[in-house]
């Protein structure tokens, strides 16, 4: 009961009859509908949170498939015209010996998004099942997912910058492929999924809901 006891030792704001503004952190009474300071809507628990998480997550996963199937970069030079997908680019970089860059791209484009999918799914499922263990760990996971999610956009930015800069007409041009848009959408969807997750739900598991 050690861990449970320690959790039970925590008093949630809801139990204390308080509600914190999600935006500015101002604490109100539970019956207060709107934040006095910033005017934000005060909700003690977002009952649709998990729905949103799942919806955004599924949208993100759907967008992630074309992002990997279709080419990310369309490179046309005088000599040839190449299309590189994410994985193809990683493999190419690896073959050329640029291990570091290959690793960065691989992590940013594959490991992080996939890890996010898994992490968010894990969080959502654990909340739904009412899991009572590792609440701290899961909270930390959530924090990490939310923090790191934006860095997945590094790929999209690289593509955007290259496309904008390398437009040397016939000599060399780089254009974003469909995958760039898909990947950006996928990242955005997963970020929204992470944001939609109401982390307070983690702590409600060992309590009788409402």
């Amino acid at each position, binding site marked *: 009961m050690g861990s449970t006891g320690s959790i039970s030792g925590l008093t949630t704001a809801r139990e204390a009859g308080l509600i914190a503004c999600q935006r500015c952190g101002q604490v109100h009474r539970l019956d207060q509908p709107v934040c006095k300071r910033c005017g934000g809507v005060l909700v003690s628990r977002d009952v*649709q949170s998990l*729905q949103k998480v799942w919806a955004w997550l*599924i*949208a993100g996963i759907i967008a992630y*498939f*074309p992002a990997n199937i279709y080419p990310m970069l369309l490179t046309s030079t005088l*000599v*040839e015209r190449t299309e590189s997908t994410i994985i193809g680019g990683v493999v190419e970089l690896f073959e050329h010996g640029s291990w570091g860059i290959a690793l960065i791209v691989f992590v940013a484009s594959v490991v992080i998004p996939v890890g996010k999918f898994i992490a968010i799914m894990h969080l959502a499922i654990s909340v739904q099942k009412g899991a009572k263990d590792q609440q701290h760990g899961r909270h930390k996971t959530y924090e990490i997912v939310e923090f790191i999610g934006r860095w997945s956009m590094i790929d999209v930015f690289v593509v955007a910058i290259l496309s904008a800069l390398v437009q040397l007409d016939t000599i060399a041009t780089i254009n974003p492929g469909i995958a760039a848009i898909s990947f950006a959408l996928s990242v955005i969807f997963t970020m929204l999924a992470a944001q939609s997750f109401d982390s307070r739900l983690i702590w409600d598991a060992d309590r009788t809901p409402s």
Partner: protein
Amino acid sequence: MTDKTSSGPAPMDVRPVKPKLWQRLSLVWFVPLIALGISLWAAWQNYSDRGTLIEISFEDASGITAGETMIKFRDVDIGQVESVKFADGLGDVLVYARVDNNVAPYLDDDAQFWVVEPDVSVRGISGLQTVLSGVYIGGSWDTDADVQQYKFIGSEEPILTTANQRGTRIVLRASSGSALLAGAPVLHKGIQVGYLEEPQLSLDATEVVVNAFIEAPYDRRLTTNTRFWDTSGFSVSFGANGFLLDFNSIASLIEGGIAFDSLVSGGDPVEDGAVYDVFYDEDTARSSVFEDPVGAVVEVAVLFDQAVTGLTVGSAVRFQGIRIGQVSALNAVVVGEGADAQVVLQTVLALEPTRFGMDEDATPDEVLTLLSDFVSRGLRARLVTGNILAGTLVVELVELEDALPAILNRTSGPYPVIPTTESVISDVAATAEGVLARINALPIEELMDSTIDLMTSLESLASDQATRNIPTSVMTLVDEARNLVASEDLQAIPGDLRTAINDLNSILAEASEAELVTKLTDIIDKADAATENISLATENLPAITTEIEALAAKANGLAVESLVEEATETLATIDTLLGSDETADLPRALTGSLDELRAFLAEVREGGAIENVNAALESANEAAAAIEEAVAGLPELSNRASSLVAQTEAVLESYGDRSRFSAETISTLRDIQAAADAIANLARTIQRNPNSLLTGR
């Protein structure tokens, strides 16, 4: 809010009614739905748009890369190569490609594919863009959608004529393909209006067949009267116009080329697949206009056992002077085996049956049957001289009455063999040389020299003062004689006078004895004979009068003019001499002379000396002798004139007629004849009436 601290009845476990599922659903669910919808739609779109898979087999992949190489139709991308594989047994490379669905229905059995690579040729550089971008597969098909096909055999060479190029495709037949390369230009008045495709041997390997494509609208220039000829290479001619180098275009110089022109109007338009012969050069093509070039041809062979130098492909084949075909090939073949083996020259004749009266649709068998009938009746082939100057030969088919029996050999070799007979080849070089040598050998210069000498001596004789003085002295003598006769004493010496007259008579008799008349008659006869010879020569004139004319012109340029002039002049002088008043006055002068004689006699009578009379008679005798001498000179003149005529005749025999020289010579002869006539008349008069010399009448 539940108040846990309040007392009272146990709190009711009041739970809000669970909202229905759809009420609890968040709007956010639309996002994955839309994403899913878009994805599915994109996937379906992708699947339906991915194009039709076709298979093209090539001998080698030559730069085709899976996933990169495009298929282009009219330079528009219509597909992309998906994969490149080997066919079973590694015999071919199979290229699988997806082509646009809207194009796929047009890929029927006329679709052709080839690999476009950079090509540098004389005509220019093509496919340069593929140097950087890599090869692509070009496609060509027409705009009619027939039965769609999925498997194609790629062409190794670029297709020159795409299916929808407008124009006319024709077939050219040539005896040699050396001048023909795929892509070589077809020129019309020096402009490229088409090109040749890949030349191929005909099935029997006897000729080269090449398809050519004439682009619209120039294909309207093609008629049944159009002739094609080879313009490849260049021609160098060296002739009267100097050195002439001629070629059509640089491209045709290197790659060969074909030119065409409709040489006569009125032909019918042709359609695709029309067959034309390619002539060796433009002249041949032009000369063939009036023959039927596309008539069916039956090929037979002739084995000549002698050299056929001068016989070329295209040489005429004649039958009774009419061209009925041409030589289509010259080969050496071995006949017989072992020790009997010998190499004979096989001349292949392409006979056009329509040219010897057969129907256009007569089968080769019918033609050969007819030919073998002819052969059994004595038809033989032989070589005859075509052009006497160029030394070319033609093949002549002749019917010999006394030919040894022979048959048309239809079983040996690819062609039926027509038996041969002895050829009639005149060695034109020898003949011409002989003619020239004979002309060279003519002693024209010496002849003219001697003629001029003769004329000069004639002239000097005629203009010699002594000759001219003859009449005068005769006249004086006659005067004296007249005086003598008129004297009264003359009666006394009639006997003497009679003696003198007798003497004169004897002089005249001598003159006639000198056969003056006979000789003159001879001259006339010879002149006649000369005229006859000339007319004979006219009849027997050889056909090469033109050359002779040129020669005569050269002869004309020699001193003949002056010779003739001088001859004319001399004859005129003779005429003048003969027709001069002095000559005409000769009788009168004789009378005067007699008068003088008379006076002299009177003087004698006055002197009364018989010796004087005798002396006078002696001097009369001398005078008569002088006349005799003068008259004796006339035959000599006649002789020389006669020899002149004879020599002139010889000249004329060598020269023939039709030249101005001949005409003038004939007129000269006529003049001479007239002069001779005049002399003959004079002589005849003197002969008939010798007394007139005395009486002056």
